[in-house]
């Protein structure tokens, strides 16, 4: 159990796909103008990651090695299409706000990376915490970034007015440059946290 938890926890900070591995960046910046988008994107991505990892883990012995990449692509693309249509059907506003970035989940390097390096080699029991860990690691960063951007750039979080009405929103934060700079500060913060986290552990070792 502890092992599974460790796999899960790995994705949250230590190997956080966005902050540490620097992959899957596009969606992190593009859709984070509002918290709802951030959460939606994070969960969609988690869904695709989880389902792809499960399916590939199940079929891993049946996939010939030399065509594994195309097969992975097919699986990932299929689940991406599923989430795309599900969102279109049940969350049309969210779907519209995230636009092309939902289909682009298919090229999100995180999924391919996890599938290739993890799911195709491990049993399903390991795969689920990994996918959830990575997915949630991705989601919390997206949520964090989008909260900062929405709060400062619009005075709201999830559409609710948080700052007083008299607050003059700093539009910078919801525009493209703001996305870059907020993200930069997040990475920086994470590196700082990581360096703090590392010390006691290293002392033990």
């Amino acid at each position, binding site marked *: 159990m502890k092992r599974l938890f460790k796999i899960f926890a790995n994705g949250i900070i230590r190997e956080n796909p966005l902050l*540490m*591995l*620097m992959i899957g960046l596009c969606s992190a910046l593009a859709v984070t103008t509002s918290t709802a988008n951030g959460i939606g994107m994070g969960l969609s991505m988690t869904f695709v990651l989880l389902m792809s990892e499960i399916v590939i883990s199940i079929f891993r012995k049946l996939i010939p090695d030399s*065509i594994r990449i*195309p097969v992975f692509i*097919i699986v990932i693309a299929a689940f991406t299409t599923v989430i795309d249509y599900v969102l279109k059907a049940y969350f049309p506003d969210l779907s519209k706000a995230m636009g092309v970035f939902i289909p682009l989940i298919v090229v999100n390097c995180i999924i391919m990376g996890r599938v290739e390096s993890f799911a195709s080699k491990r049993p399903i029991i390991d795969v689920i915490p990994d996918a959830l860990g990575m997915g949630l690691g991705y989601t919390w960063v997206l949520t964090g970034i989008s909260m900062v951007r929405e709060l400062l750039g619009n005075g709201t979080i999830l559409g609710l007015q948080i700052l007083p009405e008299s607050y003059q929103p700093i539009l910078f934060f919801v525009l493209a440059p703001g996305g870059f700079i907020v993200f930069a500060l997040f990475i920086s913060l994470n590196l700082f946290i990581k360096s703090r986290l590392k010390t006691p552990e290293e002392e033990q070792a």
Partner: protein
Amino acid sequence: MNIVLLTALFAAALALILGLALGFFKEFFKVEEDPMVAKIRELLPGANCGACGYPGCDGYAKAIASGEADVTRCAPGGKATVDSLCQLLGVSASATSIVAVLACQGSKEHAPVKGDYIGVPTCRGAKISTGGTKLCSWGCLGFGDCTMVCPFDAIHMGGDGLPHVDYAKCTGCKKCIIECPQQIIKEVPRERKGSMVICSNRNPIKAMVMKTCKVGCIKCEICVKNCPEKCITMENGIPVVDYSKCTSCGVCVAKCPTKVFKMLQDDIITDKKDDPKCPEPSEVATGDVSAGTAL
């Protein structure tokens, strides 16, 4: 149901076409490659920096495969790369390896300075413009040029103003040896036993040596006279040990009035406990992915 059928047909057709095309192209455009080169290439970091002296990682991989180059030349990869290469090739990088030993003990406390130096804080800078800041003009200048170039982070300036080699990390790449403007870092076989002279002052006048450094060789030749194996000779102002004869008896170390001699294995290369053989596969580090994108 029509749409399901259509879908199936389309998907099958698309996948077949693509699959066949790929397979066909692969056969058709096959390029013969030494599989070893590819394997080696995989282990190199892919920085294509040229630090190894070959045109990119591919070039270096080829050179290793053909036995032209040894495995220790990749600076960015560091020890992890060397280790994994050792493992792949089944060689031991350290079997013949050397380490860097500083031939100077002129720490801040022992070697007085000759004036306030205002200038670029590098050894070479100080040497060129003012001949160094210490009265001894042979010894370590203490600005740490050597520490800047070590790709393995194996040499650091100590509080005493001298660089100290971390022998667990030193791979004997000679970068520091080449860099030192005083040419006082010496290459020494890691396994060598015996004593070594840790001084480079060639001034023949005892009084002048004593004025410039408290731990300098004062040319008294007591070591030469006392060595039971007669393996020490004065060469160009500095005693030199003949390691084919040296038995590590320690007489020179004991007798030297200014404590210039040190035993290599006991006093110098002490922290060598990193096994020189290739590590176990599980230990092969993969490196931090984020390091690749760092500046």
